[in-house]
């Protein structure tokens, strides 16, 4: 019985469509495609907003409060880097990869891995090293949504900063190796990005 229904459905799918013209059918699927793609991207963009990220208390009560005191939240020029500016790459391919990885965070939310301040603190080092390792692997792709070494005006930087950035260029260092713990509390733990990089390189 079940098979018969399926077979009939399959036969209908295989049959040429004769009632409407090719133009009508083509136009329908063209419009449907636009609506689907637009909806998909709008939905994806919605998950990139600060209000989405801070919709859960895990983010709102911990990392969001720390970030609110930093220059990426409030500064003289009024350009704000929101959560996704630093945690989600801008270009489509890398964004999709990151979004698929982030679905694991939904599982974390359901199982309550970090649902109390104590649990969050206990898990902070693990989460931070995961972010550092990711940024080491992608040459700090999110930082480069806005910052590049090429676009830095050396005359506007202090001598100290100029020396550091010249060293970064010469030794092929990536942003996160020096600039970590800048928007959230630095976790207690043995490895920072420099130590992590050394470990990753020795494994290769």
């Amino acid at each position: 019985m079940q098979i018969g229904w399926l077979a009939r459905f399959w036969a209908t799918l295989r049959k040429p469509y004769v009632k409407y013209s090719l133009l009508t059918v083509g136009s329908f699927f063209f419009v449907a495609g636009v609506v689907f793609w637009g909806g998909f991207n709008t939905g994806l963009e919605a998950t990139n907003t600060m209000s989405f990220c801070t919709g859960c208390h895990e983010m709102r009560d911990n990392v969001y409060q720390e970030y609110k005191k930093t220059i990426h939240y409030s500064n003289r020029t009024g350009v704000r880097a929101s959560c996704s500016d630093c945690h989600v790459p801008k270009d489509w391919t890398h964004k999709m990869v990151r979004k698929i990885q982030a679905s694991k965070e939904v599982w974390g939310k359901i199982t309550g891995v970090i649902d109390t301040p104590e649990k969050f603190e206990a898990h902070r080092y693990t989460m931070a090293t995961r972010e550092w390792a990711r940024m080491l692997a992608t040459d700090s792709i999110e930082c480069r949504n806005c910052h590049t070494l090429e676009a830095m005006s050396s005359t506007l930087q202090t001598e100290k900063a100029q020396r550091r950035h010249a060293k970064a260029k010469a030794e092929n260092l990536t942003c996160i190796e020096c600039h970590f713990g800048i928007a959230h509390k630095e976790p207690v733990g043995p490895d920072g990005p420099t130590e992590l990089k050394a470990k990753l390189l020795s494994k290769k």
Partner: protein
Amino acid sequence: MKSRLVLLASLLVIAVPAHAADEAGAMKLLEDSKCTKCHSVDKKKDGPSFKETAAKYKGKADAEAKLTKHLTVPSKVKIDGVEEDHGAVKTRDEAKIKNLVQWILSR
């Protein structure tokens, strides 16, 4: 029973000074004074970590005096072979400075 209570009470009194340094206050002063730009508690940055500093001064009688001077009087330090200015903490409150020095030394 009574002697046990006395023992417990004296243990508490002894235990308190070890945790006397106010961590939140120390961290705030570190951030306000921009120390954390070059120093981490336990990780590698341009300056030594506070753990390294604590290890260096461990068991030395003049540790507190030396570190207090380093934190309050601007000096020069060498980074990658270049001399750079080492700043001072942005407070004149001696209690806050003492707290920070003790906190660093107890890492």
